[in-house]
């Protein structure tokens, strides 16, 4: 177990937006989707040690050692120039972290924590690690009061879900779009696995919330909202639906030309869902 390492982009000991309560959040590097609307695109790729970022670093925090990019966090001034120059949306600042490392952080912050959430990137790409971590949390008497959550795009096969769900308390599952063509255009992947995953997780009683990103003209259409409503109802009217609003913060590329989702627009969708009988619809507390 201890030899198992995860590639981690970031660890937060304070987060109120990644599940119930205050959570320790581990952002795992690498994603199987390539969403144009991603608000942390530097978590998508996995470093291939091309070295393009090294000259971009103005404080010499990056170096090539034995063919690998090595990062010195003490020299870094967090200017993020390396992230902007990376050709594959990766980050040279990732850390290799063991289960024991995370348990240490969790113990130190235990009184402040309601639970642990693995996010990303796509957390389930490092499935073995996630399962090992959650299992270790459950086995630790000081930590087993913490709930273990996964924030995921759901692009994972049924058998893997079965393994993961045995050690998971809750899943926040993102549906990017219902129309297959729209989904493909937005993410580069099909949505069949995701939709299936929602049912698997819901059947296991572990779907904490279904998340849906409203993008003007793309996923806020009548057709998409109708499909979202039907899908949510098929899971059960008590399914918790969180509507997120597309904003420009963190976004790169063409999507910056797209309009932001307005509060009025989000409220219209929420109203539609509520009228259809979905009891718990959450809308953003903040529009940037």
């Amino acid at each position, binding site marked *: 177990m201890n030899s198992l390492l995860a590639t981690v982009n970031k660890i937060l000991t*304070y987060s109120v937006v990644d599940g119930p309560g205050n959570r320790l959040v581990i952002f795992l590097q690498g994603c199987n989707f390539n969403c144009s609307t991603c608000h942390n695109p530097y978590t998508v790729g996995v470093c291939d040690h091309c070295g393009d970022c090294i000259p971009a670093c103005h404080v010499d925090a990056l170096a090539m050692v034995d063919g690998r990019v090595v990062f010195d966090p003490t020299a870094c001034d967090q200017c993020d120039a390396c992230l902007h120059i990376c050709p594959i949306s990766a980050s040279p600042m990732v850390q290799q972290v063991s289960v024991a490392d995370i348990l240490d952080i969790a113990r130190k912050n235990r009184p402040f*924590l309601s639970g642990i959430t693995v996010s990303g990137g796509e957390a389930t790409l490092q499935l073995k690690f996630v399962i090992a971590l959650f299992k270790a949390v459950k086995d630790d008497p000081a930590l087993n009061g913490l709930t273990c959550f996964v924030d995921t795009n759901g692009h994972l096969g049924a058998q893997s879900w079965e393994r993961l769900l045995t050690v998971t308390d809750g899943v926040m599952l993102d549906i990017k779009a219902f129309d297959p063509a729209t989904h493909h255009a937005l993410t580069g992947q099909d949505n069949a696995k995701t939709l299936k995953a929602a049912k698997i997780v819901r059947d296991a009683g572990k779907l904490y919330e279904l998340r849906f990103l409203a993008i003007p003209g793309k996923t806020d259409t009548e057709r998409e909202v109708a499909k979202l409503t039907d899908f949510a109802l098929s899971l059960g009217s008590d399914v918790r639906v969180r509507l997120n609003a597309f904003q420009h913060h963190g976004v790169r590329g063409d999507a910056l030309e797209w309009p932001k989702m307005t509060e009025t627009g989000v409220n219209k969708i929420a109203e539609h869902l509520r009228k259809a009988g979905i009891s718990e619809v959450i809308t953003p*507390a903040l529009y940037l």
Partner: protein
Amino acid sequence: MKRVPIVNRANMSLKKRLWGNKHKPTTEIAIDLNHFEMAGSRLKFGLDPTHKGAVMQEIFEKLRNITNDKTLNPAQKARYLSLEAENMLPYPDLDSETAEALQQRVICDMYEGHAPYKPRYVLPDYSIVLKNGSEYLELSAPETLDEAINTLMIAYHHVPSVTGIPVFIGQLDDLLLPYCEGVSDDDLYRKIKLFWRYLDRVLPDAFMHANIGPTDNRVARTILRVDAELKQIAPNLTFRYDPEISTEQILAIATNNIVECSKPHIANHPIHAKLFDERGYGIVSCYNVLPVAGGASTLTRVNLKEVALRADNIEHFFAEVLPHYMELNFRLTEARVDYLFNKSNFFTSFLIDEGWMDRDRFTVMYGIYAMAEAVNILQEKDGRTGLYGFDDVANEIGYRMSKEMAKIVENRPLENVWRGRAMLHSQAGISIDEGVTPGVRIPYGTEPDPVSHVLALAPHHQYYSSGISEILTVDETIKNNPEAMLQLCKGALESGFREFTANVASNDLVRVTGYMVRLSDIAKFKECKGSRTNTTALASEAADVTGILDRKPRVVGNELSAGYGQ
């Protein structure tokens, strides 16, 4: 003892007008100005005739400015006039070193006034008047909830304090629960709501403080419900939390209220309770923890930034400069306590005779502030750059300061002080403080995330027995996740925080150094529309706003004010 001038702020601005900013007043004049004595309707002066006329004119002008001020109501005018009158009296005797330190504001008396004729904070034991009634006030003991609330409403008007408005209105659930039998939930709700409205409208001071808890009870729940609903500035509210006694539900209600309106504070009851006896403690004003049936005679404070500026390096600071100025602040405290106890005749009050309070139960609060600046200055003097709140070495210097100061306070006997010792206090600032951070806080706007924030400051909390508070600013995404507030609160208290206080960034009711203001009121002032509540802040950041708008708020934090025109 050599008489040395104490220039109070009122006289400072007076002299500024008299001589302009270019010409500093001479020491001689400063002495003269402090020899005014009121004798009947005539002023007697220790001045030579040439000065006399000019000084008189200035005083009259100052008093006229108050009486004719278009932004003050008559009660506010009366208060400022009384402050001016008090401050024409000579200051209680101070030795020259202490006087100089006070004049340079290395130590500070919070501008409490030159003749302390009332304690700064009075915490009456209201259970006495509820149990016995009051002979002096011609009140019989209440028998119903209405009578009990009415008795309290009357009692509040007879409780002195530095501002004239009571800072402590009681442990309300303990006081009112005995009268609630047979009162329906709906009736209780309506009565508390009227009571709350009365408090805000009639006693408009953001420092007036109610306490509830640690038990989960009907009165506490109703107060929390009403407080969240009305979102008033007054009264301030503390829920005393004890994990052994309080239910998780009532703590959750309280922390949900914080998400709603940034109130109440959550006090770490077990930590406070063990320092006091069976008569207990109250959280009053801006997180001051004081004995019930007593209070605090005075609050003086040491500006650690000024102390650090006078030190050559860290070791010099700890070995000589800090103990020196701490001693001077003790002497300042002693002079003020001596006046209150031995000259003012305060303790002849019916409040003493009837047992609402006890002469022996008045502590003194020993305040410190600007630790962040002090540590950063000392870091620089020792050639290091790490900043307070973020850097481990800097934080360690801070912890050492707290520990050292607690030791000095513990070893310094004082007369006419509860248990013979002062109580250390992390002081949260007044409106005129510039370029200094309250207490041991991390400078506003630069704080790390709430968890790191708590962990950086928690080690200080053990030392500040009469109160310490940090304001955690939480962004509004927490509104969708109030459970996170509950968890943060539990984490902070478990980490040793004596008090948990949080502001939600988007709330209308927010905390400035330690009391509430309404942002919508400030916005209305900006539009020059005025508002019913006239509530805004006197803290330094908000003082600009009130200055621009040129009117005084109806609900204010009187304690923050250093005097008229400040």
